């Protein structure tokens, strides 16, 4: 990728998105692609997300119990604290960062390889809008499937907390379950899923951008893939701050 200033990058990114969201040549082909992307981006990441969520849920519970040593804090606060950490931050943001690594580098190298091996040129010559064909299904697919993944992650994280908490004696089964049922604020779920949808859009579009404008050879594809992970992570962290400020701080 040639040296461009921030403004030029933003301009080119906006132009790419504009081309991405133009009228598809053939709806049926695009629908098929969307389902493929849902499968590979979403379902393909389920295992990783499950393992990470269970373990992180467990660790969050044990750490909370370890810190709540004061007799004035009831033990059910462990369940409550775990639930809130997972719903507000761990599942939407940390899991998205992990997805930025897994899915983001995958997208950038896939599209980058298609660029350097002239597959994108081949699409254009056929009269296919390559940006729309390659990128739109990824964005739509991930924006659709990520919220489900994050809900599953929340569920497994809280479950992991329960299993580890009870197994290690950090809190009792009764207290944990009482805790996760207390003071539940439905708005927090809305907040978490809003973040998720925005992160899904960022991960797929930024990685696609880096892949699409690769040129050179295999080395540049590798660089594009690394770069996309770095940019994704930074943008996600900044966006997280902005959305949190807008939605939670009044």
């Amino acid at each position: 990728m040639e040296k461009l200033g921030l403004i030029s990058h933003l301009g080119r990114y906006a132009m790419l998105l504009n081309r991405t969201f133009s009228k598809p040549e053939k709806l049926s082909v695009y629908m098929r692609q969307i389902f493929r992307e849902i499968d590979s981006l979403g379902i393909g990441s389920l295992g990783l997300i499950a393992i990470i969520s269970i373990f992180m849920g467990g660790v969050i519970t044990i750490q909370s119990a370890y810190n709540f040593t004061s007799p004035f804090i009831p033990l059910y606060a462990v369940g409550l604290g775990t639930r809130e950490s997972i719903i507000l931050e761990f599942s939407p943001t940390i899991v998205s960062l992990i997805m930025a690594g897994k899915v983001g580098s995958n997208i950038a190298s896939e599209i980058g390889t298609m660029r350097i091996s002239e597959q994108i040129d081949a699409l254009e010559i056929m009269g296919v809008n390559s940006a729309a064909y390659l990128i739109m299904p990824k964005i739509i697919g991930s924006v659709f499937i990520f919220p489900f993944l994050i809900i599953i992650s929340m569920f497994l994280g809280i479950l992991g907390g329960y299993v580890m908490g009870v197994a290690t004696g950090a809190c009792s089964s009764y207290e944990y379950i009482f805790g996760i049922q207390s003071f539940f604020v439905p708005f927090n779920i809305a907040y978490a899923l809003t973040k998720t949808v925005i992160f899904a859009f960022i991960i797929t579009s930024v990685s696609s951008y880096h892949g699409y404008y690769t040129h050179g050879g295999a080395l540049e594809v590798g660089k594009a893939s690394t770069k996309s992970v770095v940019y994704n992570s930074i943008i996600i962290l900044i966006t997280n701050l902005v959305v949190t400020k807008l939605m939670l701080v009044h």
Partner: protein
Amino acid sequence: MIEIKNINKTFGDRQIIFDVSFTFLPGKCNLVIGESGSGKTTIMKMMVGLVTPETGEILYDGADFLSMTLREKQELRKSIGMLFQGGALFDSQTLEENVIFPLDMFTDMSKEEKLERANFCLKRVNLENKNKLFPSELSGGMKKRAALARSLSINPKYLFCDEPNSGLDPRTSIVIDELIKEVTEEFNITTMVVTHDMNSVIGIGHNILYLYKGKKWWEGTNKQVLRTDNKELLDFVYASEFLRELRPK
């Protein structure tokens, strides 16, 4: 028929193409030949719209390509097939899916019709029963043939081939050349072949444009090439001392 008229192209401050005009005839293999770096690929890319010339005209059967809107270009491109140097097959798709892809995108054919067409095209390039293979499982020659099958699937009126036999052994090269020539004549396609391979020049060069440092230096047929007295073309054709001695007087 495709006509290019007075095409000029500059990259940065280096002019690469100087005022080139040529007519590409239907039903014939139209060759653009010249040394590496003489601008052959650039001319092809301008003709299909991957690169825009500063001045000049490109006419597809009279229709002015450069003044078309993006939609009109996309419409025209449905009648263009292109064979890329590396094949540019879609890695994630089987051969059959590759060949069917343009049909999926641009036609309303039924599943059976598409499959029939794919089988016809694969058979035409001697790849029958290889439907389910992925590009990574093919040799270089097979990839080229599969790419040719894909560009044929939509019945192109225009076919562009960039160095179709680069990286292939001489025998496979001739097979590819022959295939290109056959389909060109069979389906009356206006075919452009970029090459620096002398076998191709002799074998399929019915209408040749010789580029020298970005300029049109010579045009003619394969028969005329051998008897030319154009110095640069002679050096290009009879690159070796050995061949020069064999040259017909």
